């Protein structure tokens, strides 16, 4: 195998692939990246493959000159380190496999990496090899990223309730929905996709692990690129391909699905909120940030006092033995009675950060009932309040 490729493009690809490869593994081959140089019709392609046994990725580089097709399996972190250490004046690097040694050459530097037998590289689930396809559809990368960006932040971290460590992806006809929760808040984002006639399947849902979503966000550059999503019984595939090149996608991310039952989130979304408040997103975000300065571990909550008479919101926080804060804010709309409710400010800040709308709609009912935040037509966010001492 011998290939000459664009150094920067290869580094980026190696970093993306390497982001999921475990740095230390009992089996060294699991810490490797597979480089596969192919040539079809005079066009060379270098495909980088990596996996952490749960999530896997294949990235195809087209800015390459394949001198001799072949496969090299090398330690991913070393490859990344070498590529970033090589003089950045070098536009290209040459990678050449000679027996069990992989030579990486820049203009003034040479590296020799011991390669592993390609048979040792862990098998990668192949889209072609899947039988029980439950759903298959295409969605523009931009839409997918919007769904991920507005939900993934709300997933639980390292909880033993595995189902909420991931994001629910639900497809029902033309409606695509992503939902994430950590038990205290829930984020839901919806999108509509163009339905191809042939895939009239009943509603399908699956839980995508957070790691896979992070990888998707890394890989997606062009919002216009179509992502072919295929959901099977235990895996999901995301193939990023330019229009007309679906057969040769630039990137394929595949992941095992999280097993378990996702909470019945429909029941959690409040339907009868009688206080509806509209606030400027930036103003609210700033006020929340200010109020959260004087919170601490013992007193995490920020009290929000909504006043209908002057359409105002007063935020207050109090950290024992530290201090207190009070921030006032004008509201652009208010229906309903006065209410005081406390939230963990981080939860609100998280959601406001993902919004690009100028205004946010806050719907409330009672101090011990969930608060509902809405932005645009596609985003819902439910936050449970904090019981503050009276």
């Amino acid at each position: 195998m011998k290939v000459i490729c664009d150094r920067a493009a290869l580094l980026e690809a190696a970093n993306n692939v390497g982001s999921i490869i475990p740095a230390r593994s009992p089996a060294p081959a699991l810490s490797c990246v597979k480089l596969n140089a192919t040539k079809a019709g005079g066009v060379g392609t270098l495909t980088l493959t990596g996996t952490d046994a749960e999530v896997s990725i294949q990235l195809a580089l087209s800015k390459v000159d394949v001198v001799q097709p072949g496969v090299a399996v090398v330690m991913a972190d070393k490859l990344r380190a070498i590529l970033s250490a090589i003089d950045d004046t070098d536009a290209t690097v040459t990678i050449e496999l000679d027996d069990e040694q992989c030579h990486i050459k820049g203009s003034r530097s040479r590296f020799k990496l011991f390669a592993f037998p390609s048979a040792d590289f862990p098998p990668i689930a192949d889209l072609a090899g899947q039988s029980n396809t439950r759903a298959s559809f295409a969605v523009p990368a931009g839409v997918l990223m919007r769904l991920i960006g507005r939900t993934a932040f709300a997933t639980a971290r390292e909880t033993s309730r595995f189902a909420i460590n991931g994001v629910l992806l639900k497809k029902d006809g033309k409606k695509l929905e992503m939902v994430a929760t950590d038990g205290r808040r829930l984020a839901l984002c919806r999108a509509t996709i163009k339905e191809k006639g042939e895939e009239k399947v009943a509603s399908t849902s699956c839980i995508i692990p957070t790691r896979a979503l992070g990888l998707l966000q890394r890989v997606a550059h062009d919002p216009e690129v179509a992502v072919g999503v295929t959901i099977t019984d235990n895996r999901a595939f995301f193939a990023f391909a330019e229009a007309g090149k679906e057969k040769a996608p630039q990137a394929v991310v595949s992941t095992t699905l999280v097993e378990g039952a996702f909470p019945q989130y429909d029941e959690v979304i409040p339907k009868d909120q009688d206080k509806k408040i509209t606030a400027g997103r930036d103003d609210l975000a700033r006020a929340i940030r200010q109020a959260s300065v004087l919170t601490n571990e013992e007193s995490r909550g920020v009290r929000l006092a909504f006043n209908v008479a002057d359409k105002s919101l007063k935020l207050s926080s109090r950290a024992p033995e530290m201090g207190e804060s009070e921030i006032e804010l004008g509201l652009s709309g208010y229906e309903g009675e006065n209410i005081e409710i406390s939230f963990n400010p981080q939860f609100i800040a998280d959601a406001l950060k993902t919004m690009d709308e100028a205004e946010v709609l806050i719907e409330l009912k009672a101090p011990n009932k969930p608060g509902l935040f809405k932005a645009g037509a596609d985003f819902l966010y439910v936050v449970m309040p904090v019981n503050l001492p009276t």
Partner: protein
Amino acid sequence: MHGGAVTTQTTPGTTPGDPVAGTVASARKPIRVLSPLVASQIAAGEVVERPASVVKELIENALDAHGTRIVVELEQGGIELIRVTDDGQGIAEGELRLALTPHATSKVASADELEHIGTMGFRGEALASIASVSRASIRSRTPQAQGASIIEAEGDVIVAVRPASGPIGTSVTVRNIFFNTPARRKFLRTPATEQGRCAEVVREIAIAHPGVGFALIVDGRTLLDLPAGQTPRQRVLDVLGKELSPQLLEVQADSGVQSRAHAGVLTLWGLIGMPSLARGTLSGQHVALNGRVIRDRTIQHAIKEAYRGLIEPGRHPTAVLLLEMDPRGVDVNVHPAKTEVRFRDSSLVHGTVLSALRQALQGADLTASWQAESRGHAFAQGLLGPGAAGVPSGDPLPRPVVTPAVRAEEARRFVEGFKARYQSPGGSPGGYPSAQATGATSARIDFAALQAATAGATPATAPQTPELLSITPTTRPMQVHNSFLVTQDAQGMLIIDQHALHERVMFQKLLARVLGGASVPSADAPAGSAPVPQPLESQRLLTQVVVHTEPRAVEVVEHARPLLERLGIEARPLGPASVGVSSFPTFLFDRNVEVEPFVGDLLVKLAGDGWAEGSITDPAAMEGALAEVLDMMACKAAVKAGNQLSDMEVGELLATRESIERISACPHGRPTSVRLTMGDLEKLFHRG
């Protein structure tokens, strides 16, 4: 003892039909009245279990006779011979026979007197019981008598009563204990063991009666010689070992101060040990009530409670407590051995002991010291083993001589102690939480070993100087392997366990918040902001988390609702074995503590503590339960060994250290810090 034994135990001289004996029914054999000997032997089973119980009964008789000096002699651990000699009132010649008669006593005349017993004995059983299982003789002379008389008995047969020569007072000699009850004889242990128990009895009673002189002579050697008229403090130190003095805190209390209704009912004096003196058994606790050595659960509990958080749960503090109360306030007629008592107002006793001990502990610097392993060792021997007891100065008996063998032994012990500190055995001891499975383990101190070994206190840390010596901030503290903080104070070097200290800090903060009032240690706390008890801040959950648990844990939910509410946990039973949780403390979320396992553990724990049976309304018990749960929370939430801390965090942690009460141990009782004094360091480097 059953009917079968009756026939074999019959001795000549018994008169069938004696009304004293009880009856024993047997399926086949006719009902018969027991012979007095058998009846007496059965009764003896309760009073006389082993030589040590004979020693106890005889010393108590000697005390009741107002002896000022009591000499106890033992041979073969008391199995061969026990002799207790006093210089008290003596027994008149004519009463000697009665002394050996069951239920004959000079101490109680009517049932009314049982209401306020002022003597050690009162049942009139001891001498008769002892005589029935041994070859006993009593030589006695009253101050009025011209000479002494002696009575000898074997089983229940009185062999002779004759005049003898001897000083004023009584001397009871008991030989061949259990010679006629082989079954019991079999249960005797080795002479060394029995001797140890006898000696323990002598020491305990000696502590309870500092005014009376005691001597213990074993096989001709004087093991203990305590002069009469000592102060309680002198007596305790003489018995436990003077070298312990710096590690003992004096306690004094009068229940009248706390409870006017019971003014003057209970007074207490005691010496209690630093947490480092705690041990695996209750053997370090000596409690006497009105001069009577007692084992009382209420008091044991109060002691344990006072040390909560200072010692590990499985260990018991060292404490000597002398209590005085109106005899009417306590019933000692509970059990023939009279070590159990029943208090009229046990909560008063509990409260007095608890608050007195707490106060003493809170005022002291309890930082564990590295030093003086040999002292702790001597202490352990002082109570249990022969030969290490305090011999008053000026006594002609030889002081222990430091031989080369002793030196070698000390050196070996030091090396082992050192190894125990710096070698981590298999796992982390005592469920020591570690964020890092590997890595820093080699540097981790084995706390269990340390606790066991570290018994000394620095002379500079006398109990009289209660304020904590502050850390001299000349240098930045150092974090060792992300687990320990090393800094210095006026006395030397301090090694601080970051997890233990943080856990302690969190625990105190939580406790202050939930209980209110308690000290919130923070240097920058605004003055005058009196803390009001508040429930912990809690986060409501989107959907309730279902906790699968055991049925009795489900019952707890209803009973412990007030407790749970204060903790910020909202839960309700969902089914026979499941509980739904709808709120959970925010700070536990912050610390990545999961709802289900935590609440599950909590409920099971509360069920074990008796919450399943009903609400615990007693405020003290509630406080105890809260403390335990908060301890659980603090442990889960504290930084772990292996967590890297920023300079600011280290500074903050050390700043709070100085102001937090009981800072020397994490809530589990492991020490938070260990001090190497300049003396220790010099010793380590052989600087003399």
